[in-house]
Structures are given as C-alpha cells and as structure tokens.
C-alpha cells in the first residue's frame, strides 16, 4: 500500500518541505507570494514539459528543439499582437512555398519511377557515376530551389517590417515605407512557388515525404493556398488597420491561437521531415533536434534581432493600474495586481497559473477518456503492439508531436506578457523544463506536472533567497547573488535527483 503511493507521498513531502522552509525563512507574507510566483513558473514549465514528456514517452524522441517551438510561438504571438504587417507580408511567401512543394511532391513520383526504370548501375561502377546518379539530381534541384529562395527573398525589407514600434532599434518605420509595392511582392510570390515546385521532388527523392491521395485533391489545396496568399497580400493594408483596430483582448486570443497553430505546424514539419525516417536511431534524432535548436535561435536572431522585446501588453482584464482587495473585486475592477496578505501580486500571473491548470486537466481528460488518449497511453508502453492491432501509430506520433508542440508554443505566447521575448528564452525555459521532467520522471504525464511544481517552487524560493541575501552562519555577512545563480542552481537539484532516483519520482525503472 505504501509502496503504491510512494511517488505521491514523495511529492507531497517535498512540496511540504519546500513550503515550510520558505515560510520559516521568509514569513507568511513573502512566502505566499513566492509560492504564487513558483506556481506561475510551474505552469510555464509544465506547458513546455508536457509535450517533451509525451513525445519522449510515446516515440522515445527527446526533442531538443522543443524550447525553440516555445520561443517561436512567443515571437509569432507577440508579432501578430503588435505588428500584423509582418504577417501580411511574409505569410503569403511561406504559403506559396508550401503550395509549390505540395504540387512538386507529385512531380517527384513519376521522376522516381522513371529513375527506377532506368538501368541500375552495378555496385562496382565507377565511383563518380554512382555518386552522380545517386545524389546529383537531388543536389541540383535543391541548389536551384535554394537559389530561387535566395533570389526571391533578396532585398526583402524584413528589417523595416520588424521596425514597427518606436522601441525598435533605429525607430519605427511607417507601414507605407516598410512594405514593398504589390508588383514586387507578386514577383516574389512566383519565385517562391517555383522554389517550392523544385523542392517537392527533392523531398520525395530523399524519402522525406510521400505523395498520397489523388493529384487533383492536392492541386485544389495548393490552389486554395495560393489564393489565400494572394488575398492576404492584396488586403494587407485594410487587414492591418482591422487587426490594430481590434480590442486588446481579441488580439490576445488571436495571438494565442496563432502561436499554438504555428507550434502545431512546426511540430508536424519537424516530425515528418527530420524525425520520421530515423525512428530506431536515437543518436541521429538527438543530434538532429540539437541542430534544429541551434538553427531556431539563429533564425529568431536573424529575423527579430539579437535584442529581446519588452513584455507584451496584457488583456484588459489585467490592465488597470490599481490593486484589488480580492478576486471578486478584481473581476469588476480589472486591476493589474491583487492583494495577497497585504502584498501586491500581478493578476496576469494568476491567469498563467489558470491556463496551466486548464491545460493540465484538459490533456489529462484527453489521455484518460478518449480513444486517442487510450492509444497514446498504450503506445507509451508498446507502440509496435498498438500497430499490430491495426492502428496507424505513425499518424498518432505526428499528432502527438503536433499537440506537444502546440502546447509549448501556447506556453510561449502566455509567457510573452510576463517575461517578454528574447532569443535565449527557448534555451532557458527548455533547460528548466528538462529538469522538471527529470525530477518527475520522463514519459510520465503526472510526473511532469509534479516536477514542474517542485521546480517552480524551488526556483521562486531560490530567487527570493538569492537576491534577498542568505545570511552566512557565524558571520555578519550576507551572501547576495543575481537570479542567474538561482537559475543555475536548479541544475544541482537535478543532480541530487539523479543520484537518489535516476528515473525520477514517477518514472518507471529503466
């Protein structure tokens, strides 16, 4: 009996320990706000860690690019919220590449068939000919495509488009000057489409993608995408005015949705192009996702600049600069902070905790009571057996990858009004999420939540202690440090957990 609840008891013991030490040290007032701060962090760690843990549990893939998705979600949400012209000008280009690639995939099929029909080279043919026939067509097509991508985006005024707010370095650029004329953009669209057309066959030839279903369906989808691209571009000025005319609340919700959707798409992209063909080769997958992590940071730096941005504006419910005495008063007063035992606590952070809680319960219900959840839970244990039951487990993999990535990106958007956006945020939050997941136990959903709570509390208390100063025993001196030290010291927590219980609190033994 005791053994069965060991994990739960451990969790409760740690939390009680953390909180009681905190209260003894800081007194009830400061400790309570520290607990709330800790839960805020825990909610964000959870949003990031849940996907990490689910993906690892189901597919044995540790996605080092997960923090990047969190960050890109944050940047996308942030930009849509405050700088819609960035989207109206870049989205059509991206859509055209996709539209082109979709059709291109069908060009790849006859190409591959034609290649297969040609005489096979003997294994001992001259090396040059083997290399040429094997990779030359792909390399040639890819080079052409990449060249077109470069040509099509040459001189694209990304910097001007980004410089929307006066806070941008060099000041704001008015939309009329930031955007290129439509005729220019139309040429770019064509270039992007052709580049996509060339990329499609490469992806098929290198077995990254497979053409499925009848051609006309894909053609229709491709045409729809192109039409959307054209419409978005055509209506970019009214669209920007419309978007900026919307209330902060609506824009915030749109930012959340856009962030999550981007995350899901990125997840699908990463899974299908990079992960899928390497199942069973974990080292390659790890190295690949590490590479993607690196690319992600550099991409964000290249697009949005090395400097971070200040926190995003909060929805109106958290915007009035006043302090409400209690939750009910807050709902009518819409204050930015609320009174907690005589200390002000930002209401937006309560909202973050709420989002974390809602997602925690929502995903738990999904896992517990739906067929998809049942398949995921079974797949965590034995995905080959799930496949042997006649279930397309690979599709479930992609779906879970998309779901986990969407959660991370959502977390990023939620975090943007709290911490702002900056190119290191992905790595910083991912590190903490890793540690949370290690504490809780990789692959365990409840474990992730538990690990996030423990780590969030530890971080919050650590921040207060480290920045407030730790009185050194037997001396008059006080040890003071920056929050960076608290951030680094969580690695020590992970070290302790690894020494005591390598599989984590809720993890199964290796």
């Amino acid at each position: 009996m005791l053994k069965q609840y060991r994990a739960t008891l451990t969790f409760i013991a740690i939390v009680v320990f953390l909180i009681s030490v905190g209260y003894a040290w800081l007194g009830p007032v400061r400790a309570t706000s520290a607990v709330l701060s800790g839960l805020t962090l825990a909610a964000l760690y959870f949003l990031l860690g849940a996907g990490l843990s689910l993906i690892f549990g189901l597919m044995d893939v540790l996605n080092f690019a997960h923090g990047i998705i969190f960050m890109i979600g944050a940047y996308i949400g942030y930009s849509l919220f405050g700088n819609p012209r960035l989207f109206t000008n870049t989205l059509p280009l991206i859509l055209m590449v996709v539209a082109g690639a979709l059709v291109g995939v069908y060009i790849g099929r006859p190409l591959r068939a034609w290649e297969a029909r040609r005489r096979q080279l003997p294994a001992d043919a001259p090396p040059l000919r083997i290399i040429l026939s094997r990779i030359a067509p792909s390399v040639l097509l890819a080079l052409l495509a990449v060249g077109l991508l470069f040509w099509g985006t040459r001189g694209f005024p990304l910097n001007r488009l980004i410089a929307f707010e006066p806070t941008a370095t060099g000041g704001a650029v008015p939309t009329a000057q930031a955007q290129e004329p439509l005729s220019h953009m139309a040429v770019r669209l064509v270039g992007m489409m052709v580049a996509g057309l060339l990329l499609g066959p490469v992806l098929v030839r290198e077995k990254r993608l497979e053409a499925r279903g009848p051609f006309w369906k894909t053609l229709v989808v491709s045409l729809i995408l192109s039409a959307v691209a054209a419409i978005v571009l055509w209506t970019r000025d009214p669209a920007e005015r419309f978007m900026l005319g919307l209330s902060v609340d609506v824009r915030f919700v749109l930012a959340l949705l856009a962030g999550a959707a981007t995350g899901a798409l990125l997840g699908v992209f990463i899974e299908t192009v990079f992960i899928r063909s390497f199942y069973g080769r974990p080292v390659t997958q790890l190295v690949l996702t590490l590479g993607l992590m690196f690319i992600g940071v550099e991409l964000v730096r290249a697009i949005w600049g090395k400097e971070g941005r200040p926190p995003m504006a909060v929805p109106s419910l958290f915007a009035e600069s006043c302090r409400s005495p209690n939750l009910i008063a807050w709902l009518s007063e819409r204050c930015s902070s609320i009174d907690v035992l005589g200390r002000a606590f930002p209401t937006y952070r309560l909202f973050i905790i709420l989002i974390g809680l809602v997602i925690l319960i929502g995903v738990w219900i999904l896992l517990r009571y739906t067929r998809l959840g049942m398949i995921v839970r079974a797949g965590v244990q034995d995905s080959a057996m799930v496949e042997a039951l006649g279930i397309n487990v690979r599709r479930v993999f992609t779906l879970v990858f998309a779901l986990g990535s969407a959660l991370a990106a959502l977390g990023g958007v939620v975090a943007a009004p709290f911490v702002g956006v900056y190119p290191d945020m992905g790595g910083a939050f991912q590190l903490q999420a890793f540690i949370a997941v290690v504490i809780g136990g990789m692959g365990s959903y409840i474990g992730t939540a538990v690990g996030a709570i423990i780590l969030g509390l530890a971080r919050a208390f650590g921040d207060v202690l480290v920045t407030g100063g730790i009185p050194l025993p037997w001396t008059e001196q006080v040890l003071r440090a920056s929050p960076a030290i608290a951030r680094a010291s969580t690695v020590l927590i992970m070290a302790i957990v690894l020494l005591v219980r390598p599989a984590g609190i809720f993890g199964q033994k290796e």
Partner: protein
Amino acid sequence: MGNILEVRDIHTFIGQFHILQGVSLEAAEGTITAILGRNGAGKTTTLKSILGLTPPRNGKVVFAGQEIQGRPAYEIAAMGIGYVPENRAIFTNLTVAENLKIAERKRGDLDRKANFIFGLFPDLKRLYRLPGGHLSGGQQQMLAIARALVPDNQLLLIDEPSEGLAPIIIQELMEAIRQLSERVTVLLVEQNFQMASRLAKNYVIIDDGRSVRSGAMEDLLRQPEIIRRYLGATI
C-alpha cells in the same frame, strides 16, 4: 476449403542478420496450423514477417487472395489478422476494458463480441475494471487472446501461449483456443509439443530460418525420428 494464408519463400533480415532464409507455409481456412521448431529457429520472426512488423525482403505473403508483403503492419492487421505476441504484450497501465476497447476497428465491435469473448474467458468479465498489470500471467494471456478476438479477424497469429503458465491454466487455454478455432483460422507457435499436437490439424517445422517440413499433424505423430531431430521432443 482453401488457404486463407500462403507464405512463399520469405527472407527476412534483422539488421544485418539473415534470420529467415526461405520460409513457406500455408494455413487452411478454419484450422489450426502449428509452427514448430527449436528456440531461435525463426518462428516468432515468421509471425512478425507475416504481419509486417519485420517486413520480409523477398518472397510473397498472400492473405485472403491479396499480396500483403511490404505493406505497413497496421494495414495488414486491419485486413483481418489478429496478433497475440509472446510474453502476452498486454497494456499493463490500461484496464482490461481499455485493453479490449483499443482493439476495436469499428464502433461497437466489443459489444457484439462480448458474449463470445466472455463465454470463452469468464474471468475477464470479473476483472473488467482492473488495470492489466494486476492480472495473473494466465489471465493476461487470456486477455491478449481476447483482445485479438474483438475485431472481425479471419486469422489469429498466436505466439507461445503456454509459456510460463501452470499446467491447469494451459488446459483451460487449450480448450479456449480449440473453441475459438471454430470461428477463426489460427497459426500457432508453440514450444509445448504436447499441446500443439493435440490442437493443430497441420504443422510446419522451421529449422535455422527455413521451413523444412510440413503436412498433417497425424502424419508427424507417426514419425518420432523427425520430432526428435527437429524438436528434440518425444511424444
């Protein structure tokens, strides 16, 4: 009756290892066919190759008149092949009910088959809400077989059902397999020759990755030297 399954000269590689080097067999509709052979002869790989979990590199697998080799495992299974792997790979963190429900291919599969399944394995009804991990070895084996019976399968691949079970439970299982074989064709891998010989109508012997002999079980029983040579067993 015709053959629901025909395997023609399949070769399977696992990594660089050439595990199956020419296995052919057939399963006549409505019968039990036993795959016999020593440990490591390639019996389990044969089942996995049929199902596409370890796809064969050469050769043909024909199921219900269609060539299925090279298709993804989930497509093959969905055509009507149920798989009961060795070590009864049930999902221990799912309840018995969920273990059965997950095998549904159409809504209501389980409800339609409930009487048949619980008729075969009355225990499962009693344990319906329990996590699979709490079941005993025999019960887990029954659950694994029951799971394969939930959808409308035409063929069951059963791997070593008697492994590690008490004799009395083996008896029970044998009876269940005999009963269910009236509804579906069974391809049975079994180390326990006693059990296999009593259940199966036909046999295939696999040795060193090759199918070396096949025929009617009653003929095999008259050839003790073959049994000794390939199976190391006596009648």
